[in-house]
Structure formats: structure tokens, C-alpha cells
């Protein structure tokens, strides 16, 4: 397991403790100083639960969840640990209830659970964003199953790094998380953290810690929250709250061709060099030549031949678009009208 930071949180707390500690018994000041995060934590702890389920192979049989209604509805990350017959939810007071899975979403990797208990403390799923880039966020989870029964969950402090959408994969398999997400800089990419709460400095729910995924862009595990807006849509019963990235959706029109034949170098990741341009084709009319390297098509970066094919598939016949190629040391931009395939 990697080392993960507890960094900023402990720093701030240590600082606050160090400074206030010197002043002696100024209790009021202490409360005001330490209180700026305490309020958020006090609000979030009773609304966050521990979940225990089946452990399958190397997959951990535990997770975290957030309460989203007063009648026992709990959101968590989808996973095989919910597949067993004995899924249990432990509330902040240590009481444990059996839980059943109400619904799952495989595109956002969410699961909705239900326990038969009144849960007066729950998170409101606000549709409008409550935090923006750089804002403090507090992540609360039972990563590594550190807390048992009534023990409070682990709290870490970080900032919201970016709201974005990325193509990702979970572990070895190509499972796409299809939706927007909040990247955060608290380390939440650890076993059992998924389903935890990410809240603002005043304890409002920003989102839910997502399943362990790796970013294809960086090949690293990412730390992120599923935005409350998407959680709300899922809880409301909309099957797939995400709309999908428009540019990756195949168009309704007839399939397109530009008349470009790429070099095939044998590798899966060959750069998109133009081998030849078909006579009379869209590419020839536009001015593309052999040995040009396709750099972007329709605004998408073409790192290798597969990217080109994907960008081409998104075009329809008759559509006008822009292609940028590298010719010797220059980048050249051409407008091109796609042929019918």
C-alpha cells in the first residue's frame, strides 16, 4: 500500500493547537479557532455510516456510506461487497442494521441501500454546487476499516482541485466512470473510503467519495467525489444521471470518411501519420498530403491511430470540421468536409 498523506489537516490542527495552547485558558478563543472545522465534522459524522458486507478474494468487504433520507436511505459506492446476504450498516451511535440494495448505477458506480430505521440526521443533496476550485473540503470515511462500531470515522482536510470529467478505469478493467467529478487533494483512494462524505468547511455535502479508479490521463489513482447533483438524480430514480460526453456519442448521420490512409507500424500506439490520401477524397481537396501527422481532428488530440478512428467515428458525412496536421516543423490547419463512407 502506498503512503498517503494526512498532511494539511494535521498541520492546521497542530498549528491551531500550538498557538492556542500558549495563550492559556482563553476558552472562547479556543472554541472560535478550533471550531471552524469542528462544526463541519460534528455535522458530518452522524450522517456518515460504516458498511460491512461480503469480502470476495482480495476485494475488501467494507465501505462507507452517507445518509440521504430520514427513513434509512444510504448511498455508497457500488461493489461486490454488497452482493452477499449479510450487508450491515453501523450508525454513528454503534447500532447496526441489516441493509438491502435498492438500486445500483454502473456508470457512476453508485448503490442505494435501505435500512429499517429512522435516520433523522441526513445529508441534503443540493443541486447547485457548494464548493469551487481551491475551497477547503473535508473527507470523512472508514478507509482501512480503522473505526469500529461507535468509533468516529476518519477525517482529512484538503482542497477541491478541479471539477472535471475524465476517462478512467477501475483497477485493471476498463470501467468508465461516466460523469463529472470533483477532484480533491485529500487522499481518498484507499480501501473502504468509497461512499464517504466530502463536505464544505461548514459541513454541507459537496459529494460522495467515489470508487477506486485510475485516470487514463495520468495512470495514477485519483481522489474524487461524485457531485451531489449527480447523487440527487440517482436517488430520485433517474437511471443514468450523466449525459455522456457529447463528442464521444456517435452521430445519427451517415458514417464519414476523409480519405486518409494511416501508416500501420504494427504497434497499437503508432502516431497517426498519413500514408496516402485517396484520390478525389475530402482530405485531398483540403490539402492533406502523405507524411503529414494528424495532430487534432474536430478539436480532439490525436495521439495515435486509434484516436483518429474514434474521432472519425464521431463525424457524419457532409459535416464540416477542422483537421490540424504537422508538416515538417509546422502545424497546418485545414477545414475539411467529410465524405460519405
Amino acid at each position, binding site marked *: 500500500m502506498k503512503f498517503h498523506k494526512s498532511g*494539511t489537516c494535521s498541520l492546521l490542527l497542530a498549528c491551531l493547537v500550538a498557538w492556542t495552547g500558549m495563550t492559556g485558558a482563553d476558552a472562547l478563543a479556543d472554541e472560535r479557532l478550533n471550531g471552524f472545522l469542528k462544526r463541519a465534522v460534528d455535522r458530518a459524522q452522524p450522517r456518515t455510516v460504516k458498511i460491512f458486507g461480503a469480502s470476495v478474494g482480495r476485494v475488501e468487504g467494507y465501505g462507507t456510506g452517507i445518509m440521504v433520507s430520514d427513513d434509512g436511505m444510504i448511498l455508497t459506492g457500488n461493489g461486490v461487497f454488497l452482493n452477499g446476504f449479510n450487508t450491515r450498516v453501523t450508525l454513528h451511535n454503534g447500532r447496526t442494521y441489516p441493509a438491502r440494495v435498492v438500486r445500483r448505477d454502473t456508470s457512476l458506480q453508485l448503490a442505494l441501500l435501505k435500512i429499517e430505521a429512522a435516520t433523522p440526521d441526513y445529508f441534503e443533496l443540493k443541486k447547485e454546487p457548494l464548493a469551487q476550485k481551491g475551497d477547503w473540503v473535508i473527507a470523512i470515511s472508514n478507509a482501512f476499516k480503522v473505526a469500529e462500531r461507535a468509533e468516529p470515522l476518519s477525517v482529512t482536510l484538503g482542497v477541491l482541485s478541479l471539477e472535471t470529467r475524465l476517462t478512467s478505469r477501475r483497477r485493471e478493467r476498463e470501467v468508465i466512470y461516466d460523469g463529472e467529478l470533483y477532484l480533491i487533494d485529500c487522499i481518498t483512494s484507499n480501501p473502504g473510503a468509497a461512499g464517504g462524505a466530502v463536505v464544505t468547511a461548514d459541513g454541507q455535502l459537496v459529494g460522495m467519495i467515489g470508487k477506486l479508479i485510475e485516470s487514463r490521463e*495520468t495512470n*495514477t489513482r485519483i481522489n474524487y467525489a461524485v457531485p451531489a447533483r449527480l447523487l440527487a438524480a440517482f436517488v430520485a430514480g433517474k437511471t443514468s444521471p450523466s449525459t455522456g460526453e457529447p463528442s464521444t456519442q456517435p452521430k445519427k448521420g451517415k458514417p464519414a470518411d476523409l480519405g486518409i490512409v494511416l501508416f500501420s507500424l504494427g504497434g497499437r*500506439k503508432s502516431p497517426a501519420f498519413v500514408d496516402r490520401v485517396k484520390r478525389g477524397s475530402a482530405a485531398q481537396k483540403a490539402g492533406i498530403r502523405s507524411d503529414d*501527422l494528424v495532430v487534432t481532428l474536430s478539436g480532439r488530440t490525436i495521439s495515435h491511430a486509434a484516436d483518429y478512428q474514434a474521432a472519425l467515428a464521431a463525424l457524419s458525412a457532409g459535416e464540416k470540421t477542422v483537421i490540424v496536421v504537422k508538416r515538417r516543423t*509546422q502545424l497546418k490547419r485545414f477545414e475539411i468536409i467529410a465524405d460519405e463512407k
Partner: protein
Amino acid sequence: MFHPDPLPASFFTRILLLCCLAVSPCLNRESRAQKSGDQDGGTSVPETGEADLATGILLAPRAFRAAAKRVLKSLVTIDSFGGVGSVQGRIGGIRRQGEGSTTGIIVSPDGYVITSSFNFIQKPPIITLTTSDGKKHVAKPVATDWTRRLTLLKIENAGGLPIAEFLSPDSVEVGQWAISVGIGFGDSNPAISAGIVSAKNRAFGRAIQTDANISPANYGGPLVDIRGRVIGVCVPLNPKSGSLASGVEWYDSGIGFAIPLHDSSIIEKLKTGTDIRPGAMGITTVPAKLDGSGVKISKVLPKTAAEKAGLEKEDLITRLGDYVVQDPTQFRMLVGRFDGGSTTKVTFVRGGKEQTTEITFSVKTAAPAGPSPGSNGLPKGSSPKGKQAPSPGKK
């Protein structure tokens, strides 16, 4: 998506003051009072300091955003095309380099860009840069600094590019805010991570350490201070390995490194197309006595810096540059501070007489064997052979 805050200057100053309050609590109250009296010229810390501390921390996010925004125009998005599909085996904790764009920083108006060498371990034959105005350029690698894990790129026909302001490491304090900025998550809007400066003078004096998240998402991007000035360039760096990819295994661990570039001589040297590599003296040493009073040369290797400088077996080295030599381990660390080709003074005792001579460090050609396969990870155009700084013949 996010919209940057319009920040009035007075408000910005106020935030800075508050944030300064927020980061200085390591000092005890007495020294705080003194310091504020000394440096602020009358702007004393208000009596209600506690309230301001809490407010400062809560306002810090606005300063983080403003800092990231300030450096944004000097950042470029780097795209690579082709290269080895995947480096064999694993690089640190990750299987291979990601497919996404990476970050670079403009260091001269005419188109020089500095970035992390990690971004080219797959040796891409084609590199493009997109400047903050949206223009795409073809870039060529100029040279690589193997000791700082940096690669200098150049774009042609560029002018008037906005350069980043680099801070001197002397003005950086351990404990101050540090914000890492990078475009690696596939969005032209950079991701940020906030932390503090954890240590200075890491990796033989070449790096600043931070607990802000440093990862392939921001290698090549800046670590900035609360005013958006560049503390250093984020790189993967394991000081115990010479491989360009070493240190990736520590991504997002709270142990991250950034290379200060206030000293323009590094960029100037790279501009000449000369790679920078660790320096070597070419001697083996034994402790002089047990009192840490220097090291004794047990062997001088032929045709090395030491031989050219006139050092001989049995010489007792007492000083290297400005540093007092104590024992062989400490001496090795001192030598590590010097780049190949750099010159310094060496003081030694021979036959009871102290002498001082100049030594020009030779270049360690082979990268130290590391566990990582990325040790040969050079971009095209900065071959390890043929472009070394020639060791000057004199001395």
C-alpha cells in the same frame, strides 16, 4: 465549471495578510509579537489575532485560486505523439506513463519552456505545446538536466510569451503555503493542490519538498507560493536514484519535490544544448581521523577531475567550495551538490601545508543503476552521448 474570482487588490492584500497569519503559528507568541513589530513597520498583529487566524484560514481558498490564476498564462499544455508504447515493466507505482497532456512553464519570451523529464520517458518523436492563448506549436527538446530531472523545450518563431516569476529559495520558508498546479487531468483548466513547504535543500540542495500533492498530473507544472510566484517545477525525484522516472512511486504521498529555477544559469546552460549531469571528482576517500576533520584521498583515478586539479593520494581535503569537509559520507553529499562541468575551490593539506586549488567536476556519464526502467528515458535530441559538457582541459 469554475469562474475565477475577480479580486480587488485591497482584498487580495488583506487575504495575504490573513494567510500569513494562518501559516506562522509555528512561531510562539513572543517571537510573533517581535517579528510583526520588526518587519511590518507598524502594521502590528491586531489584538483579535485569533479571529483573524480563523478568518484567514477560511479565506485561504480565494488566495489559492488567485495564485493559480496568476501563473496560468505562463503555463503550456504539452502533447506527445508516438514513442515507445509503454516502458517495460512498472515505473514506480504506476504501470506506465499516462496518455494525457502534461504541463510546462514558459521561461523566456522567445519560446523556451521548462518541464519535467518524466513527461518524455516514452521518448516521443513529436511534441507539441499549446500556449495559454490557445495556439499550438511544434516543440523540440533542447537538453535535459539529469540532476534536476528537467527538460528544456523550444518552440520556433515565438515572441512576447509571458514568463513565470521564479522565487529565490532563500526567500522560501518551511511552513509557508505551497500550491501545485497542473494540467495533467485532461482539462485546460489546471487542477490545484494546497499544502505547505515541508523542507528545503533536498536532493543535494536542488529541490524543495512539499506536502501538496505532486503526481504525473502536475509534473512539469509549477509549485507556487500564495502570491502565484513559482517556488519550483514539480518533478518526481528520488534523490537516491539517477533515473528520470524515480520518485513516481511517491506520487500523492505527501512527499513531493519542486526544483527552484531562480538561478538562471541552469536554463542558460540547457539553452546551449548541453545536458547537465551529476559531477564527479574521481577519488576514493577514507576518514582522516575520527574527529571529523576532513577526508584523506586513498586513490586518485586517472583522467578525472581530481587528477586534473593536481590532487594526490594522501592529500587531506578540508574544504570543498564553501563547505567544511568532515568525513567521507558527508563529503559524498557535498560532491553531490555540484553539477558535472561546474568549478569550485578545494582546500587540502599536503605535507602539513594547506593549499587551495580549483577543480572542475567531471561528468558522471552513466546514470546510476536504478530499479526503474526509465533510466534511459531521454527525449530525442538530448542523447546522453555527444552532448556532454566537455571537461575543460586546464587544471
